[in-house]
Every structure is written in C-alpha cells, then in structure tokens.
C-alpha cells in the first residue's frame, strides 16, 4: 500500500467514525486509539464550525485531554451515571453475536495466544449507549463465529442495560448491530472492495441488504479539515501517528 493509499484509508475511517458519533456530547477514547480519537476530533471541529453543541473528548491516559480529578475510577463512575455517550472497543476476536474477546485463544487459563486482558470492557459494554467496535484487520481469524473467551457480552436479556455495540468498523466495511436480533447487518463496503470480499473474509454470518452501498469517502472540505486542524490536535496525544499521516501528503 502506498503512503497516499494508506492516508486515504485512514481518512475514510476517521470520517466514518465522525459520522457514527453524530449527536454525542461526551466520547471517551482509549489510550492507543489514534483513529477513533481523530474521528471524535473531526466531529468536534465540525460541530464547532456549524455552531452545533460542543463535544467533549476524554482521552484515557492523557493528562491534557482528561476532565477527571478522581483517579482511574472516575471514567467508570461517569459511565455508570450515564455521562459518557460513546466509546470504542476492539478485540482479538469479535463474533457474530457482538461478543468481544480481549483475553486470548484456546482454553483458559493456559491459552495458545494470550492477549493483555479484558480492561474495562466487561463493564463499559453494558453502560455506554454507543459502543463502536473498531478493528482494522478484517479477517476470519478476527471476525469469528464464536469467541473463545467472552470478555464482554453484547446482549444480555437477563439484565437491563443501556449500553452495547452500535456498529463494527474495519478496513473493509461498516456493519450496524441490531440489539434486538443480536447480530450484524452490512451497511456499506469501503471503496476498492466488494460485498464478496467482505463475505470471504468474515468468519461469522450477518445480514446483507439487497444493494450494498459504498462507504462515503470524505469530501474535500472534510479531507482538508483532517489534514489541518485534526492532525494538529492529534499530534499532542499521538505524535507518531500524526507525523506518519502528514508525511503521506
């Protein structure tokens, strides 16, 4: 992939994330998530330009982009109070029921592949209304029929919850999640790929509309906003990422 192609890929993901976040007041972003952070910053910039309500972005692990004074627990308390509208989760494995696995593959505890661990997922998935599943790699080893370990469950009819997945975004496609049915539905396929590519590289079943549109690429104004203001803002928290995107210009 050339530098320009890679930049186009990132700009498409950033733009798509800003669209998914439309309407949120407070979005939290994990420590090593430059693309979700850029998506949130794009929404904030657009809202500011359009005179829409401001967007608060909490970047975990950053002291500058952090509104909390009560230690590590405050984000979790804030989510429990309904004060965090959106968040991002990934997963070494994501299954067709929207469950995510951040622990590992094979049998617990002596797993074949061990990942870091569940972090706050088991809790935040229940409490944050718009959880966007974001995983760049789109392959059958990531998107599996059933995860080996459920770090966080998408649907739990036995308990009332306000939180759960809204969408799944990868390098190939965007899916919506239907919480009543407990499954994904393909919304759009990114330019350069087909619905068949997505089928071939997805390990779980999902609904497909009759006509599958292409994911909307950023218009010129959006691309310029990303290349200017957003990269500047991003450089404070993710200097390496901002540098590599700027270098691709």
């Amino acid at each position, binding site marked *: 992939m050339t530098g320009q192609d890679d930049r186009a890929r990132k700009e498409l993901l950033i733009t798509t994330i800003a669209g998914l976040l439309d309407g949120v007041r407070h979005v939290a972003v994990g420590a090593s998530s430059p693309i979700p952070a850029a998506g949130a910053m794009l929404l904030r910039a657009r809202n500011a330009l359009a005179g829409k309500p401001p967007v608060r972005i909490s970047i975990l692990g950053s002291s500058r982009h952090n509104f909390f004074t009560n*230690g590590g627990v405050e984000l979790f308390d804030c989510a429990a109070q309904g004060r965090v509208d959106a968040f991002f989760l990934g997963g070494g494995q994501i299954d067709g029921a929207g469950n995510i696995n951040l622990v590992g593959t094979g049998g617990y505890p002596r797993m074949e592949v061990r990942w870091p661990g569940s972090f706050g997922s*088991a809790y935040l998935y229940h409490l944050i209304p718009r959880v966007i599943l974001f995983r760049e790699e789109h392959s059958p080893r990531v998107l599996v029929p059933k995860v080996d370990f459920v770090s966080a*469950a998408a649907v739990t009819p036995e308990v009332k919850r306000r939180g759960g997945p809204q969408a799944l975004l990868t390098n190939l496609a965007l899916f919506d999640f239907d919480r009543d049915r407990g499954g994904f539905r393909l919304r759009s396929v990114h330019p350069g790929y087909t619905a068949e590519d997505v089928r071939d590289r997805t390990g779980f079943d999902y609904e497909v509309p009759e006509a599958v549109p292409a994911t909307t690429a950023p218009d010129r104004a959006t691309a310029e906003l990303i290349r200017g203001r957003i990269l500047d803002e991003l450089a404070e928290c993710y200097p390496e990422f901002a540098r590599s995107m700027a270098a691709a210009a």
Partner: protein
Amino acid sequence: MTERVGLQALVGSIAPGQSVAIPVDRAGVSMAATAAMIEAGLTGLHLVCVPISGLQADLLIGAGVAAVVETSAVSLGEAGGAPRFTAAVRSGSIKLRDATCPAIHAGLLAGQKGVPFMPIAGIIGSDLLQVRPDWKVIDSPVGEPGKVVVVPAITPDVALFHAPEADRFGNVRIGRYRELATMAYAARRTLVTVERITDRDLMATEDSAAGVLPALYVDAIAVAENGAWPLPLWDEYETDGAELARYATMARTEEGFHAYLSAFLSRSKEVA
C-alpha cells in the same frame, strides 16, 4: 509514624507470599522498589494491578517474584504485549486472576470501607464470571428487582507506589491520582518511594492538602531519584519509549530477558 528508610529496608518489609497492590504505568510505578524486590529474591507474591500493569508486572513475573497476578490487563502499551506475562500464562507458571478495571477499583473500595463486598454494574454475560468464582451474581436486595454482580473486598498486604515528593511528616503528594489513596486506604501497609523530600508542609494549605495522601496511611518512605524510570512520572518525566522498546525486544526470549534484567539491576544499584 511514617518511617524514612533506604530502598532495601523498604522492600525488606515485604514478606514472601504477600499481596502487593501496584498502580497503572502513568500513576507512579516504583520501578526502583521493583528492582530492589527482585534483588532481594522475594518470591510467591500476589500482585494486585490497579487496574492494569505493564513493565513492572512483566519484570516481577519474569524474575519469578510474582506467583499470582490479579489484573485487568498486562501490556507494554505502545511497545506491544508483555512477553514474560504471555510466556508465564502459556507455561502455567503463574496463577491468573483475570479481572475488569472497575471491579478492581470496586474491590479496593470495599477494602477501604471495611465491608465484605461491593456491588458493581455490568459484567453479566462475561466469561470473567466463570473464571472468577469469587465474584457472585445476586438478586439486588434493594431497589428495582434485578441481578447485580458483587466482588469481594481487596485488602492487599502492601500498597507500593512512587510519587514526586513527600514532606518531613510523611505526607505524600499524589496529585489527582486518587487510586493511590484508594490503594493505601485498603492496604494493611503502604510503602512509597519518592523523588525527594520537600521542606514545606504539604498539609499546610487547602490547595496542597487536596492532592496529598496523609502520613496516617503511609508506613515507610524511601527516596529514589528517577524511581519510576523507564516509566513516566507526572509533571516530572515522560516514558522512556526507547528503553521500553528495547525491553520488549529483549524479553521475547528467556535469555534476552535475563540479560536485560541483570543490566537493569546493576543500573538500579548504581543509582541507589
């Protein structure tokens, strides 16, 4: 009374098999005490990561100091996965107590309040409930009927962290890293390393006292300049990313890990 001691005496008060609460990388990790613990040949420790850990846990696991690891994750962050943690999981050489961040905070809060457990939202549906039989799902005894998870109190034998400064009375400045206070409230003993001892009384004004853990909770303090290195210390120094990357590469093999460790220990001795 808060004691002023040397690093060796500080870690000498930790007994094999004890549980030790340690903070997340950005919140003030005592890497100086970590080196001293390894040097002292401590074994069988039960680490309680609040709520996750990185280099510190990976070193303590690789050096055979930690036998039980209670954590929501172990990761070197931008430097990648934690190699000794991963190897130990595969070989079964540590006992795992997988958790989720707010459950660790909730367990410490129960410890802080002296109650046996704390209810916590969410978690239901997660396999963590299968691998943590000490976490229970109960019918809420009050309010709207429904299921709720309860986690047992966490009362570590020791809380251990690094901070910029303490005053002569043993008050320690923790800024807004309130989890350090929670750890100290819940733990039986709290050991702290600091960059320096300040002459001013940290409790003197409302402004300074707000970000302070009072000496009441602090059992012993040792001065260790640059004591969080290569991890960051707020307002003092950033992460030494090159050093973390070097560790991540070397610790991929057992031999590489031990080569890193011996250099790390001799460097720590020179500084101390």
